């Protein structure tokens, strides 16, 4: 299965990817800027995401809300920021493609003349509310802050979360916004995908018309921190407004698409994806010492980390859970997966690829995938090779990847316990500093 597409790079450096799919009368516009929280610096965190909010507050030729004209045309739209990139998308009826391109190009080319202190301070308030709602007022919500801070050293760009520190958000200034825009929000640092009910030639000529005159900005150098090395066993503790304690264990692992990335992705599935997984079966189904368990290889552009999390059933300690998790990982590192586990993993990987191709747009649809491949490896035509990475995984290569990376020589373990119940934490844990 592949996605037929064409790619053109405009004179100003903007990549334009086009894919035709006439099955439904809608078109997806998907625009990636290759900037995320990894481009921030300590003391200035949360900025890429705060900036994303300002992109919805109007630009020079449409100095009012971004939503009304598009929703009025029947679009759905959104944007998101993570460590590595910021994306914006609209899915519009075929007849409103030009409107979406007008709007996206206006905010790429003409955002700053419409930017005001009032918009800035309003959206900072909205972001502080988002932080309270999704992190501070949510059980276990501060875990990402504690884990990333312990996994990556203070000057590493993955040390902080995308939502940022409260103090940094409060200290952000309008002039920072202007500098950020000029540095990162320009055609040479962006990739535009158009997918759906449109002739490829028409899509390209519309993209040219709306984007070709926007000035390219300065080249953005890749972020290349020194390789972070995790040594020793870091044990942290957080007290939170929770009923049941939860343990998080994480290891530093290779980056997205690097050697061992696919192996570790499948290993995480074998460990904790669904009722057939080893940790679910042991912790939740057989021994009943946990209420849930999850695992993921979080592949990012510069580095990755595998994180396993499990919530203790009442009456059980996090030390019990951690012991069982380590035993299962050691067993996988020693014996490797069964042939049946590999076979199931491969069919599931294929199905997951297929499920992602069901939509032309939004988060994770075809246009988003084309942009992901184009932005991270410079080649939108990566679907088949991406799936091949998984099909090449063997029992032995998976075993070796687990043995190489998920070791006790370097890992972070975080206990989150009900307030006042530090006795439930793993032994020898010290309080994590989060704000």
């Amino acid at each position, binding site marked *: 299965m592949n996605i037929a597409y064409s790619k053109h790079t405009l004179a100003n450096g903007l990549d334009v990817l086009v894919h035709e799919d006439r*099955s*439904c*009368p*809608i078109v997806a516009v998907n625009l990636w800027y290759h900037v995320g929280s990894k481009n921030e610096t300590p003391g200035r965190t949360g900025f890429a995401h705060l900036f994303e909010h300002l992109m919805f507050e109007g630009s*020079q*030729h449409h100095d009012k*809300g971004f*939503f009304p*004209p598009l*929703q*009025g*045309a*029947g679009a759905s739209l959104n944007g998101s920021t993570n460590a590595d990139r910021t994306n914006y998308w609209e*899915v519009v*009826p*075929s*007849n*409103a493609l*030009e*409107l979406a391109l*007008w*709007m996206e190009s*206006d905010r790429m080319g003409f955002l700053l003349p419409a930017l005001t202190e009032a918009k800035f301070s*309003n*959206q900072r*308030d*909205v972001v502080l*509310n988002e932080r*309270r*709602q*999704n992190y501070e*007022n949510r*059980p276990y919500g501060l875990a990402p802050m504690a884990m990333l801070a312990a996994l990556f050293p203070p000057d590493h760009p993955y040390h902080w979360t995308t939502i940022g520190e409260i103090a940094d958000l409060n200290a952000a200034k309008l002039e920072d916004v202007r500098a950020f825009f000029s540095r990162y929000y320009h055609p040479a640092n962006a990739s535009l995908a158009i997918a759906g*009910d449109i002739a490829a030639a028409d899509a390209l*000529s519309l993209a040219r*018309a*709306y984007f070709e*005159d926007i000035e390219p900005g300065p080249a953005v150098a890749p972020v290349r921190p020194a390789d972070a090395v995790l040594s020793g066993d870091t044990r942290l503790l957080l007290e939170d*407004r*929770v*009923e*049941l304690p939860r343990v998080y264990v994480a290891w530093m692992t290779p980056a997205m698409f690097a050697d061992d990335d696919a192996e570790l992705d499948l290993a995480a599935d074998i460990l904790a994806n*669904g*009722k057939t997984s080893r940790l679910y*079966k042991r912790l*939740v*189904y057989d021994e009943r010492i946990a*209420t849930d368990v999850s695992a993921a290889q979080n592949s990012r552009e510069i580095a990755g980390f595998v994180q396993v999390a499990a*919530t203790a*059933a*009442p009456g059980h300690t996090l030390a019990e859970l951690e012991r069982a998790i380590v035993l299962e990982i050691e067993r996988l590192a020693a014996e490797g997966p069964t042939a049946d586990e590999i076979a199931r993993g491969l*069919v*599931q990987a*294929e*199905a*997951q690829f*297929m*499920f992602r*191709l*069901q939509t032309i747009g939004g988060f994770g649809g075809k246009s988003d995938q084309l942009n992901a491949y184009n932005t991270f490896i410079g080649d939108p035509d990566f679907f088949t090779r991406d799936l091949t990475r998984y099909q090449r995984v063997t029992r032995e290569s998976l075993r070796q990847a687990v043995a190489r990376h998920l070791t006790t020589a370097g890992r972070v373990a975080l206990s989150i316990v009900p307030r006042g119940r530090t006795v439930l934490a793993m032994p020898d844990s010290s309080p994590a500093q989060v704000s």
Partner: protein
Amino acid sequence: MTVDRSRLPEPGPTRRFVFPSIEKSVLPSGLRVWTVRHTAIPVLTLMLLVRRGAADDPPGKEGLAAISVDMLDEGSGERSAIEIHEGLARLGAQLDSDIGSDASLLTVTALSRFAGPALSLFADMVARPTLSEADFERVRQLRLHRLTQLRDMPGAVADRAFVKLLYGEHPYGHTPLGSERSLGSMSVDDVRQFHRAMIRPAEATLVVSGDCEHADIERLAAAAFDGWDGSSTGALPVMTTLPRPGRLNVIARPGAPQSELRIGHVAVPRNTPDYHALVAANMVLGGQFVSRINLNLREEKGFTYGARTSFDFRRLPGPFALQVSVHTAATAEAIDQSLQEIASIRGSRPVTTDELALGVAALTRGYARSFETAEQVARAATQIALYDLPDNYFAEFVPKVEGVTVEDVTRVAAEHLDPSRLTTLIVGDYDTIAGGLAHLNLGEAVVLSPDTF
């Protein structure tokens, strides 16, 4: 081509979208088999809709429908729960269940080439579940733990308490999960009884969407569901006298950085003739980003990350509710602004032509987006099955919404929204917000204990 930035481009003529036709047949058991062709990607969605849900939980056994459906994948015939899931994994299949008040929905999405085995596994779960004592105890324990954890989540606490305030002992007065007490009083026999009495083919519709032939699916379904028969027993819930909750209710959450708010009352059933006008009215009031309430509370005031309203259309009158989480310091003002917005759309500040046009356009022009995947198409068909909608329902939706006038919106808002009956619930830091609440003229706040829900 030169770009004119002095004005926004006008959308061209609309390409009409036609909902694919549903092919229907009925098996001798009464099971309705519906298929919808959807060939974009070699993926197939199987959905089973049973018109019994959480509202059919017997009194004192709240949560029974949900745990019964949850247990369908816990083993069948010779197969253990783990073996069922290994079978699903070999097909690349995803299993989901969804329990509402009026219905239960079980979904499997798989690669098309596995249609036969997927349907066979699906039928085993639905028709021949093991329902063993040991599995029941484990699943119940997990649900009890889940309830414990939900007590930490302000949104979940608010949802649970709010339906209880509005509906009291009525079958809509609990969330599908039930309570610690009701789960504690259940046995595996209750689950077996529920399966025997409620999960029956005569009340069920199998919807299959994907690259498939109706005749093939009908044949496969007849074989896979062979031996499953009978119809549901017991009367469907009816309306009863509902409680009159206090206007202002608080569940204290000391130190909470935000207040979780619910404001609403019992409104209308799915079969109201005002359905389309209410959907349009809700878009303007709180149904989209550019709605009055979100623009007010988020974009003007910066009180919240987002606010929304909805009419929950069900077989019996469902709730109208505003949901929002606001900064603690803004609690009283956010309530005041929300109440004013709800009241004013009834006539003192009626929707404008532009507002309505925007809301209608958002609903109608983007309509095709809702039918892109096999799962979306199947889910749409289950709506027809659940509420006995006509087959041309999707074809008529756009013209009917386009026909809604400003006067219609004001009339249905005045008729179905009653400011004097609006109940407000706050889950938040009561000590900090109590002073501000006194100025709302909603009377004394009723402080509720979270343990009573």
